[in-house]
């Protein structure tokens, strides 16, 4: 059996700031198979983006990957040289950012940018590269791609710019795409178009996709698996159906409960008390302790990331449906 597209094991990425060590990613593990979608959800500051940057090798000082491994098709990315990593990026592994201008150059025409990207990784003629660029634009639903190739980024709406950025990520039919909140700034009508493209891509090219979002409702319809992050750690993980219909971790239960459609119209929403903790100087033990309705004395010890069934994890001493941890 070939190894999964991506296997992240006990990843730790810390920022060594003057105020102290920020444990932005602190023991994160997950696996994404070819053609599957992993939804990585959590509130702002929980470490989702830093997880994505770590996979792409894009963490800058004062940040550093301080532990764990990132296996891409069985190969540990940490052992690769910067040059080898650059060859993978944009070719076999691509990232889509929340702000498409992270990908696009405002002063270059779309065709220039796309053709350069093709030529950077493929030995083809300019005409062939242009053809691929046009096809990619068509694939993400941009009308009259031939004409649009001549445009500059500012001539597109936000949703179109994001689709161009996605088209660029798709150019080499990568094996893995990390999409960091790519639809958060877009309208639902445009978000629907982009989610449709993402689905098609995974089904047709077998691309593995990590979809980072704070919106559980988006991944409910898109992902196969969900990993929920809180304060730098994955606190719960498993198939979408299990995590959303039978959550184990009190934080996941709280998040699902606060979604308006899970509440009666006009009645107070169930809410999680308190606020998200600062990652500087987190106390030992469960980071959710101060907000958790099920907290008890034992929670002052760090809870283990226990596997309840194959592929079904939670990091809680007192989960909602206790089962025998394997």
């Amino acid at each position, binding site marked *: 059996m070939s190894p999964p597209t991506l296997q992240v094991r006990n990843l730790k990425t810390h920022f060594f700031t003057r105020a102290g060590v920020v444990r932005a990613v602190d023991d994160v593990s997950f696996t994404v198979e070819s053609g599957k979608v992993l939804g990585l959800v959590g509130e702002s500051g929980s470490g989702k983006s830093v997880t994505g940057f770590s996979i792409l090798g894009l963490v800058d000082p004062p940040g550093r990957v301080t532990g764990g491994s990132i296996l891409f098709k069985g190969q540990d990315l940490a052992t690769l040289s910067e040059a080898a990593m650059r060859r993978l990026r944009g070719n076999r592994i691509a990232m889509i950012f929340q702000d498409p201008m992270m990908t696009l150059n405002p*002063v270059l025409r779309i065709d220039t940018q796309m053709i350069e990207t093709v030529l950077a990784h493929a030995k083809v003629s300019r005409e062939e590269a242009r053809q691929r660029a046009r096809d990619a634009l068509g694939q993400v639903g941009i009308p009259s791609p031939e004409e649009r190739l001549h445009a500059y*980024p500012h001539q597109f709406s936000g949703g179109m710019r994001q689709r161009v950025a996605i088209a660029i990520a798709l150019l080499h039919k990568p094996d893995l795409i990390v999409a960091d909140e790519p639809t958060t700034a877009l309208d639902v009508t445009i978000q629907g178009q982009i989610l*449709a493209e993402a689905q098609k891509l995974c089904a047709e090219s077998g691309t593995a996709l990590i979809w980072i979002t*704070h919106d559980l409702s988006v991944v*409910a319809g898109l992902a196969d698996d969900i990993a929920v992050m809180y304060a730098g750690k994955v606190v719960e993980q498993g198939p979408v159906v299990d995590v959303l219909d039978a959550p184990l971790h009190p934080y996941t239960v709280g998040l699902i409960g606060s979604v308006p459609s899970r509440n009666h119209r006009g009645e107070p929403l169930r809410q*999680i008390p308190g606020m998200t903790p600062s990652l500087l100087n987190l106390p030992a033990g469960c980071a959710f302790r101060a907000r958790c309705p099920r907290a008890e004395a034992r929670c002052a010890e760090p809870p283990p990331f226990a596997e309840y069934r194959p592929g079904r994890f939670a990091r809680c001493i007192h989960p909602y449906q206790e089962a025998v941890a394997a």
Partner: protein
Amino acid sequence: MSETLAPPPPALQEAPPIIELRGVSRRFATSLDFAAKLARRLGLPVREEVVHAVDGVDLSIRKGEVVGLVGESGCGKSTLGRMVAGILPPSAGSVLWWGRDLHGLSGAEARQAKLRTQMIFQDPYASLNPRLKVAEIVGEAPQYHGLVRRGGLDAYVDEQLRRAGLDPTLKRRYPHQFSGGQRQRIGIARALAVQPDFLICDEAVAALDVSIQAQILNLFMKLRRELDLTYLFISHDLGVVEHLSDRVVIMYLGRVVEEAPAEEVFQRPNHPYTRALLAEVPRIEARKRAFSGVKGEIPSPLNPPPGCHFHPRCPHAFERCRIERPALREVAPGHRSACHLNDAA
């Protein structure tokens, strides 16, 4: 068709409109976004034109109502909100406040109207003076407008903070020492301090984390009950709007295309745009659904399509839609929609 639908509570039906818009429009000469500005500095061609941000809107909001306003980015929600708040004059039409033209009021009355209508924004940080302590931010306006006695300011500020769910012992701190949710509470306390009866919330929870969003929405609902507030609640989040609105108004490219009691809009949407919008709302109940998206782009308000603005994206468009603007008319009691299909029926 609506026998099963309960009529609005009588108190709401009889209350006079707190705000009434009559044929309100607003035009702007376009401002350039960052990418466009950069492009222009580099000598690339960039046009400057006139935007019809709001185009002939009639709308009334009765005392005690929560009206949700939804629509895609750039359709004119904030512009409409600012005209309702009296901080942006319309280019045409009139805004009536308790039946009187907002822009014909005398100085003292105009001040009254401005105080009693307060706006709450998406980014509380941008609207809080970073150099002032919380106590000053909340106490400034009521003191200036003489809403509180000299010796009573401290207690008054404490009361506003407590009402917004903030610990008054934190009032000597500066805005940057608070989290996003707490800053939004400061913004709410500041608005409440001038004793408004009408709050316009413009994407007021959009920047907040999911768990904090629920706290702030609950606060809005609690304040409504306690202070008998009226709300215009602008949001792109249909789940949030469905949860707390009595009535929902849907805008498309500067125009109101549908307006109805909240349950009616979500259960029996009439306008093809509303139906398309509702179909795209991600639902936490969905599992591995196929997404599709409303076909086409949001057209530019610089150059809106003629006739029905929605016709280039509408699956039901026919000849008349390309020529004639459909009027907003009643399709059921309290339910108005602007679509030519309703004439054929």
